[in-house]
């Protein structure tokens, strides 16, 4: 195995795997993906859905283009089954959210995503592991590498006790960010919030297989057997908020529960860019849509952004000069 890489990507998510694969496959880079295998029995910590609760047309344009590329890529790899289409209901409780959602609905319609009475139809969703299978991607488990910091603060990757030559270290999932980036060095817009994932016994049918309740901080995914995976943001009144979104029957047995932390941005907009002094490149705050943005992010990392992408990434760079909030997404979504 080579000890010199253009990119070392920390992350066990679909986004991280796609980034690694695309950088190698489309851009010819040597990539080290640092990820532990995730057993299918573990509760998911999110879902990959091409429905960002975003209102900025620029974000939707970026997503629409990247999602189409991803669809074509998976079809070419005979991995189209990894992409399914699902109806997604969005429920707003507060007037302000209702307004934002009304606008989002119009913007989404402008990019071909139809909705009716709060249910978005045929939203692309990634399911299953994504591996592009490129020989230029090496994979190591998390325990096999360390990250150390030079006197100036720059991060350095250590593999088997020796420094590995890495052009850019990318932190592409929340667990890695929370582990490696000290709080003082995180962009001020970033915050870590508590998350709870719960799997219930089969419940009554939801209005749509995926339901988003941004004001209650709850996301529901109903499986074919009618069991429900609930993702709840925040650590207050978790059970009450989750149960308020479920149709019963009550009492409803929980089969599994896990707790973890997620990184969010205070303005709801993604952050993609390098931070000082570690020179780590963060890809965070992308919400459910992150994996679908992978082709665009890979182009950005490879230095070949498509038209319109450069300005989007500049606006979402943690080091952007204005440091003004982008205010892109509806806040509070789990």
């Amino acid at each position, binding site marked *: 195995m080579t000890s010199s890489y253009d990119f070392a990507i920390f992350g066990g998510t679909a986004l991280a795997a796609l980034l690694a694969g695309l950088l190698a496959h489309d851009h010819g880079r040597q990539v080290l993906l640092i990820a532990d295998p995730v057993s299918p029995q573990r509760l998911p910590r999110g879902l990959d859905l091409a429905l960002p609760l975003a209102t900025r047309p620029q974000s939707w344009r970026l997503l629409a283009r990247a999602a189409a590329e991803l669809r074509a890529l998976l079809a070419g790899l005979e991995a189209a089954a990894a992409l399914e289409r699902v109806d997604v209901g969005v429920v707003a409780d507060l007037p302000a959210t209702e307004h934002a959602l*009304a606008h989002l609905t119009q913007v989404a319609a402008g990019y071909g995503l139809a909705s009716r009475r709060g249910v978005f139809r045929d939203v692309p969703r990634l399911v299953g592991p994504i591996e592009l299978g490129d020989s230029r991607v090496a994979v190591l488990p998390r325990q096999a590498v360390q990250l150390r910091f030079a006197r100036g603060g720059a991060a350095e990757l250590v593999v088997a006790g020796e420094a590995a030559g890495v052009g850019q270290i990318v932190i592409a999932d929340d667990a890695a960010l929370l582990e490696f980036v000290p709080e003082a060095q995180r962009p001020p817009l970033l915050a870590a919030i508590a998350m709870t994932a719960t799997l219930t016994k089969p419940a009554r049918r939801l209005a749509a297989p995926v339901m988003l309740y941004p004001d209650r901080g709850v996301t529901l995914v109903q499986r074919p057997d009618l069991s429900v995976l609930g993702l709840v943001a925040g650590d207050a009144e978790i059970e009450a908020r989750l149960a308020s979104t479920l149709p019963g029957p009550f009492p409803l047995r929980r089969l*599994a529960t896990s707790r973890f932390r997620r990184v969010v941005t205070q303005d709801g907009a993604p952050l993609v860019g390098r931070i000082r002094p570690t020179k780590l490149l963060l890809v965070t705050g992308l919400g459910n849509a992150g994996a679908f943005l992978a082709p665009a992010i890979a182009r950005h990392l490879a230095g070949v952004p498509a038209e319109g992408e450069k300005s989007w990434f500049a606006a979402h760079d943690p080091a952007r000069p204005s440091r003004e909030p982008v205010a892109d997404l509806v806040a509070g979504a789990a």
Partner: protein
Amino acid sequence: MRLAADAAHEFGGIEIDRGRPLSFRLDGRRIAGFAGDTVLSAALATGIDTFGTLASQPLGLGERLAPLIRIGQSEPLPMERTPALDGAAFTSIGRRRRFGPPHSLRHVVGALADPPWLRAAPEETRTVELLVIGGGVAGLAAADAAAAAGRSVLLVERRPWLGGGARYFGAVGDDETPDAVVERLSRQLADRPAATLLTRAELFAISGNTAVLHQVDTTGPAPRGRVIAVVAQRMVLATGAQQRLPVFPGNRLPAVSRAIDAYHLAKRYGVVRGASAVVATQGNHAYRLALRLHDAGVALRRIVDTRINPQSRFIDFAKASGLTLASGQIPLAAGRDRFVFAPVAGSGASASFEAAELVVAGGWQPELTLWMRAGGGVRWDADRSALLAQGHVEHLALAGAAAGYRSLRACVASGRAAQAALFGEAPEPIEDVEAGTHLETPDAPTPIAPAGDMPAFLDSGPTLALRPVPGPAPEPAHGTHALGLGDVAASVELGLIAAADAGAIAEERGSPGNDLQASDWRPLAAPIAAPDLPPYLRKRYGDDPRRLHLVVDGKRRFPIGALVYAVTATRRPENAVGSIVEAAPVGGIALVTKAAAKLDRFIVETDAGSSPARIGRD
């Protein structure tokens, strides 16, 4: 069937009084038993050995899978903790088939009733300084030490009797025997006024300083269940360890028993599942059980060991007793009364043996379910092939086999040490060495056979998690089955779960939290900021956006959120010059760019289609 009353090694049953026969009905069938029986032990003694069917395969009835029962319309009770009652008419609860073999309770698996006491309000609350959960040797030692120090202690034991699994292993060298240790500690504890003992009491919830248990109260004319809350300053979890079930097709058939279950059934109630048995093991202690069954009158057809040419004092005793042994073979498949074994190395002919019962032994998994419910963590230990506890829970300590100790001496010492540490006293050192075992072949991992046609379960518990069948249909991701610790351990060994994930999965599945109750929670509506500039539109239409009242005719209203375009623009959202931000009696109030405010014609894009618009003359 019952062994003889005077069977060797007390395998006539030390809980039952053969001088006091009784009879009751279960689902209309007459069951004969003795005072001291549970409903379950009497049913098994009568030959009812089948819970029901799963995928057309019979599923064995036993301590870890038995239906709830009731007398008339009384509250449900656990079959394995409820005493047999002369003249009673019990019915089992759950969906049942109308027809089926007489030895089956004919339950439909998948429609198991949840114990209602999980949601019942406690009828009393007890307050103690120390709650000890588990009446094995570690729990007894912890309770005895605390009570000796004058602390109020409540010891809770699920079974009707004390001692846990220690007796299964027997004595080592010159050490005090498990029987003697249990007898001594039980007697001491009974004499301590600060100690209270509850048997037939299963603890099911634990949070902070409060625990909740369900007990079958046998003090009245008929057994009744009661839920008790216990508020304790400190708690010792001495919940023991579960023997793993080897994974092979047919491993939950009625004729298959775990060695520990077979031991307790014979020792306590004098019950075996048939007159002949095959014992399949990967360790030494099952030979001890085999010898005892043989001495008690069971025809031992074979003792089959996974290990190749194992050495143990128990093996020497078995040989000396004339028992037929085989080594290097694992159970391949079970049938109603025929059991097939295959060479471990994968070459050579398989062998099959006929017997009424297959007794199987696997490794040991510390019982840490309550530990996880209390907030403790677990991790996979490859050397032990088991999930072991990790982390710390305030005011709570593990002891005995649950803490990972193996020898009798260490389990007893760990009970005392746990209670000492909880109360800030110096704990005694614990040495976990089994004297005389260094010359013996160590136990092998729990056997796993190749997949076959029949279902193979991952463990013996009520989760009924099946080994995935090879083929195009993959195991559903994060399946809806709960997973017990034994299921997770088997999944790791089968490669279904990454070892690094095993602890997290066990915690997710092992402590999912209480049932969800109906909720009408809604967010509090915060004061709405001035509607001029919703946060999501900040800088969207430039630094100095303008508000315009757009109309099309005297009736039509524009929905909030609709995009506003210049007439000449391509209608893509990024080209919008504004959007409707406020309702109006006709048309709508739009926020537009400063430049767009100078236009006099617009297009408003709505769900209903495009609409021309102009600035209204207010």
